[in-house]
């Protein structure tokens, strides 16, 4: 049941009914429009990170997790993610660090290099539409992801 290998696996998360939590879905739609099918990119959109996503990461040269965050001091963040040393898991909230830990323990091999891109939101109530803050940060995140993908692709050639 393993998925086919991809150069870069990108996981976008969020719920469009929860205000700025939709940032991940917006990034997914953006990437779909920007990246041709043959680009060697595996795009995954889901409500949240779940244990079975280790299969989507398996065989990839790199992984990118895209999510909203709630941090007024930081608009958009790009950080490298390492496998955690402890695992936080619920079927609602599996941090990227925990997914990588699960990956390494399950497959017995190091996870590929992974990165977390988050954009700040301010409203996560049950309603549709992005706040002005989230819309502004979405645009920044869109530019940043294309820049980072170009760097990763160059590094892979």
């Amino acid at each position, binding site marked *: 049941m393993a998925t086919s290998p991809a150069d870069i696996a990108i996981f976008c998360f969020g719920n469009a009914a929860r205000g700025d939590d939709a940032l991940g879905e917006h990034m997914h739609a953006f990437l779909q429009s920007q990246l041709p099918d043959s680009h060697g990119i595996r795009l995954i959109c*889901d409500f949240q990170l779940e244990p079975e996503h280790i299969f989507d990461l398996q065989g990839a040269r790199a992984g990118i997790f895209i999510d909203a965050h709630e941090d007024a001091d930081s608009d958009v963040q790009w950080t490298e993610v390492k496998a955690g040393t402890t695992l936080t898991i619920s*079927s609602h909230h599996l941090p990227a660090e925990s997914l990588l830990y699960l990956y390494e323990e399950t497959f017995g091999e190091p996870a590929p290099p992974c990165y977390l891109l988050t954009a700040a939101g301010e409203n996560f109530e049950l309603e549709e539409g992005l706040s002005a803050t989230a819309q502004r940060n979405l645009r920044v995140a869109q530019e940043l992801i294309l820049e980072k993908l170009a760097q990763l692709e160059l590094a892979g050639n």
Partner: protein
Amino acid sequence: MSETRVVIDPVSRVEGHGKVTLLVNDAGIVTQARLHIVEFRGFEKFIQGRPYWELPMVVQRLCGICPVSHHLVAAKAIDQIVGVTALSAPALKLRRLMHFAQVLQSHALHFFHLASPDLLFGFQSPVEQRNIVAVIKQQPQIAIKGVKIRKFGQQILEAISGKRIHGMAAIPGGMNAPLTPEKIQPFKQDVQQIIDWCEETVKLSRQLTDQNRDFHLQFGLIESPFMGLVGKNGELELYDGNLRVIDARGNILQDQFPCDQYPQLIQEQVKSWSYMKFPFLTQLGSEQGWYRVGPLARINLCDFIPTPRAEQARQQFRQYAGAPAHSPLLFHWARMIEALHCAEAIADLLADPDLLSTDLQRSGIKQKEGIGVIEAPRGTLFHHYQIDAEDRVTMANLIVSTTSNNQAMNDTIRKVAQQHLDGQTLTPELLNLVEVAIRAYDPCLSCATHAVGKMPLQLLLQTESGNSLDQLTRHTDGHISR
């Protein structure tokens, strides 16, 4: 006698975010437990005003944990609004396949990743040793089977709906598209393995119960009526059927109760301290009429399971645990019996050529009201809609499974706290056991949002009048502050 509130917040490894308040009197006896769930507010309002045909799509966003259950139950309600009383056989089979896959993947995730650490390593063991990493290290075959069973269910859902989330599968009066032989073939290859793994896990559930039998059967023990759907012959039924209610002794109180008359069967009570309602059986009243739903309820109240290996497991369960079984920890065993049933039912459906048929939609004379009822992984789920002349929703009433188990969870926590709280001092051990009790019900606290930094954890101690005595916060990076 005055009461002090001991607050435990949140409940880790439960869907979403919860908080528990224990009310203790001067003698240190727990008089009441309150599980606070704040995220159900606004669902009905979110739906009102929308055109009815959007609902099967829109309601998927209410919950990131069981979107398929909401999708299918809304579709059942909308079938009625478009005047369809019976789906075509192929459409019904596709919906049932979706539903079995959803229940299978949900049960697998809960058992293998949320419950198995408790069951395998003991409820009193330290939290740092009682998590899925320990399972992976010590029982790697169990962990990997859990992930693969869940993946199997998820892939079936994706094959039917075309997408992982927000797929367009059920439509008013039917289904959007059939499967193809190419899509079905990989599942046919894997399904026997999935059945075998589920059956092994049922046996493991019994073994783990037997290893600590007294604890399992007495932990948080409460007795209650049970409610759920059954088929016309009394069989376990997850997608359709009518309602059955049994009392705490197992006597049938209601049988083949029509789903569209549910407002006569149950009422909902509001309490000032909770956003979540407290449903109760009308005939027993608000004090005595609370009930339980979900895997344990369904296994307790059905007459048989219509797949052979799950039926054999049900009979062994009843022989071991009694009929009806009441211990909350038995939910875990019952959950895996249902997973086995789902896997068997999926195998049967995958062999059915109707899955390839394009006879997928029916039509009828439009109605102003629709009521859908389904057995979601966590229990009976109701969607009730009324529409106006412009086809917009004017009334929506949703009773989710976790709401039906609301009072039962509170009473179970109270019982556990009575058994294990020493004075007015919270201990990590008590916190563990409260979490174990809640987790048995697999509640969906349904925040459906998970953004980084959104889930700080708090532990509060308050007087009855609301004065804070102590507070601990566990942050998402794991550090704790006072």
